[in-house]
């Protein structure tokens, strides 16, 4: 029996986890700051992001049999490694709670405005916990299935939106100063690549034809970037930058515009599911990260694990007082608390691993 994780399925996870921070946060932040030059900021960010992705892949390649926790213990020693691992778990535990809050706000805003948060979260958490309990192999399979669904949705959205796109809305070109475009390209990297760190939970050798996995991760990374360039182009090209900046979820309002052959409309609830998938995969990966940490430390898993899930269920409903405060706090602190430490950790780990390799 093949016990290895599907190569493409695993690589496709990057497509979903990279999207999760854009819902309500990343998209509006970049739109409000880069204006009509946002697609340019994304393009620049995609190119610069390859440097971070390179670091990620190098750490992924280091000691292919080990999980991320074992790698850090090996690189930094038992004590420091444990402290780093604990800090990472705390960060991603909060990230998990944030994704739950985010999904609850999004679903209440767009689909079920009368349904209590707790019901939404319980229904959402059942498949999340089930997937995590089944392990990374079914998760990778699930990811490849929902990727196909998302891909079809993207193609259908492009098909339905091209006719209402106005190129003039993207003008005037180069009005935003380059420094702002650069700053936003860095924000793009921050939101896009920070959650990708979660994929390090899986040892590379557990993936089938592991030599090809780097190539596939790069392919899905490029696909994710193209998806965002198109998304920003369509949002600005259809609404104009001034109106786009008003929306909380411009990506949802965008698909509301779709009208196929003048009679198929109201398809936004179907075409917007890729955003739900992204939050779902992010929750799954962050919970898996916690699960593996508990396994790694041989802690009485069930009590802490399920205790944390139940606790996060309640915390996430009262995490922020309102969406304005919630989103603005995330915008302000995500890069400082998550991106900078994680990217620095990747860089230092990369340097130490090179140093150790040369020494050997």
């Amino acid at each position, binding site marked *: 029996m093949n016990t290895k994780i599907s190569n493409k399925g695993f690589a496709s996870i990057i497509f979903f986890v990279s999207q999760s921070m854009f819902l309500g946060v990343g998209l509006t932040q970049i739109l409000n700051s880069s204006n009509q030059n946002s697609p340019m900021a994304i393009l620049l960010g995609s190119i610069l992001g390859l440097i971070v992705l390179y670091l990620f892949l190098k750490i992924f390649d280091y000691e292919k049999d080990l999980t991320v926790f074992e790698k850090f213990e090996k690189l930094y020693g038992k004590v420091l490694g444990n402290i780093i691992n604990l800090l990472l778990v705390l960060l991603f535990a909060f990230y998990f709670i944030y994704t739950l809050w985010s999904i609850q706000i999004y679903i209440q805003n767009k689909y079920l405005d009368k349904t209590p948060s707790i019901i939404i979260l319980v229904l959402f958490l059942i498949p999340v916990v089930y997937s995590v309990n089944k392990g990374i192999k079914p998760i990778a399979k699930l990811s490849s299935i929902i990727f196909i669904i998302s891909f079809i949705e993207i193609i259908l959205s492009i098909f339905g939106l091209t006719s209402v796109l106005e190129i003039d809305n993207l*003008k005037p070109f180069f009005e935003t100063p380059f420094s702002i475009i650069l700053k936003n390209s860095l924000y793009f990297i921050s939101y896009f690549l920070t959650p990708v760190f979660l994929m390090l939970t899986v040892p590379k050798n557990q993936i089938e034809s592991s030599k090809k996995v780097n190539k596939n991760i790069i392919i899905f990374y490029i696909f994710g970037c193209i998806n965002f360039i198109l998304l920003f182009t369509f949002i600005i090209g259809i*609404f104009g930058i001034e109106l786009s900046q008003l929306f909380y979820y411009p990506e949802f309002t965008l698909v509301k515009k779709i009208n196929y052959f003048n009679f198929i409309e109201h398809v936004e609830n179907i075409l917007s599911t890729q955003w739900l998938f992204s939050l779902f995969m992010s929750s799954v990966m962050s919970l898996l990260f916690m699960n593996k940490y508990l396994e790694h430390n041989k802690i009485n898993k069930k009590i802490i694990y399920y205790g944390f899930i139940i606790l996060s269920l309640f915390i996430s409903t009262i995490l922020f007082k309102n969406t304005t405060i919630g989103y603005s706090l995330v915008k302000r602190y995500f890069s400082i608390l998550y991106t900078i430490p994680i990217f620095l950790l990747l860089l230092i780990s990369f340097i130490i691993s090179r140093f150790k390799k040369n020494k050997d």
Partner: protein
Amino acid sequence: MKKIFIILIILLLLTGCYNYKELNEISIISSISIDKEDDEYLVGAQIMNAKQDEESENSQVIVYTSKGKTINEALRNMTMKSPSKLYGGHLSKLVISEEVAKEGIINVIDMFQRLTEIRNEFTITVAKDIDAKNVIKVMTSPESVPAEYVKTSLESADLSSALSYSTKLDEFASLYLKKGIDPVIAVVEVKNFKKKGTTTDNTSTTDPVSKIVLGNIGVTNEGKLEKFLTKNETIGYNFIRNQVQEMLIPVKCDDKYYSSISVLGNDTKTDVKKVNNKYKININVNTKGIIAEYNCSKNLTKDSTIKELEKNTEKKIRYYINKALEAQTNTKGKFLGLERTIYLDYPKYSNEDYNVKISVNVELNRKGEIRNSSKGAKD
């Protein structure tokens, strides 16, 4: 056993029955009117009558009105009159009274943008010389739902006459926010508004007592209705904004009689150049059409006659465009968007003067079923 238990729980939870509403428990709003009365908004909601059937003589719609300090409050107050919960997911028309529009259309659209259930794809119209609530009360035929009647009339006017232009909520908000351009708004009028016009009697006759008719367009400035354009100004506006798809242009072909040129395609390109620190806007109109009617005696088989007709059509289009440009100089609202055209290429533009050059090219490709007119053939 565990799996069956989980499946059973999921089956119970995922039935989609939570907080559900039956169709007869909701009132589907097809159009909303907004008037002002005693410093409050008087909001009218045209509700689709779900219980109406083919044989019934009942009206297909019911109109409820209610007052409030905000639009939402007025709609909530309406629940005291309506037996079921109002649902705005199928809203297709918003009619605003002239008074409210002059005070600011922008003051009343926030709720429609904010609520998720409402789609921003409905048309905003101004009721000219009549209360907005009366516009949604008039019964129409052949479209028995008045909102649908106005919607299809506007669509048809947009497509085939260039005499109006329907602005949807999203477009209105987008143009309002943009630099160097202001939105326009469609206008509806009611000819001979009478109480009888609000009953089904109005639809069972060949000559309805009250009729909803489309006006030309209204120009806005900073979100407020500024003035109404005339027919020729509206056509000129549509030519400049490249919104003409099909229309008919009456062109004089001798001292007394006219011919009709049916425009079948138009492409207007507006570009701007900065020469000696002065902005020059070029409006290039390329129109293709056919001769739809020719009541003169000139020989239509001659190339010179066609050329003359093309020249006269070009003159007429130039006339329309000049009318719109004149209207623009007499209004504060930048409805033609010429300043925006400059801004898109020269972002540092700050309201300096500019010149406009118009060039029109008309090609008449076909003459219909006959080569010449009967009158021309006899001469």
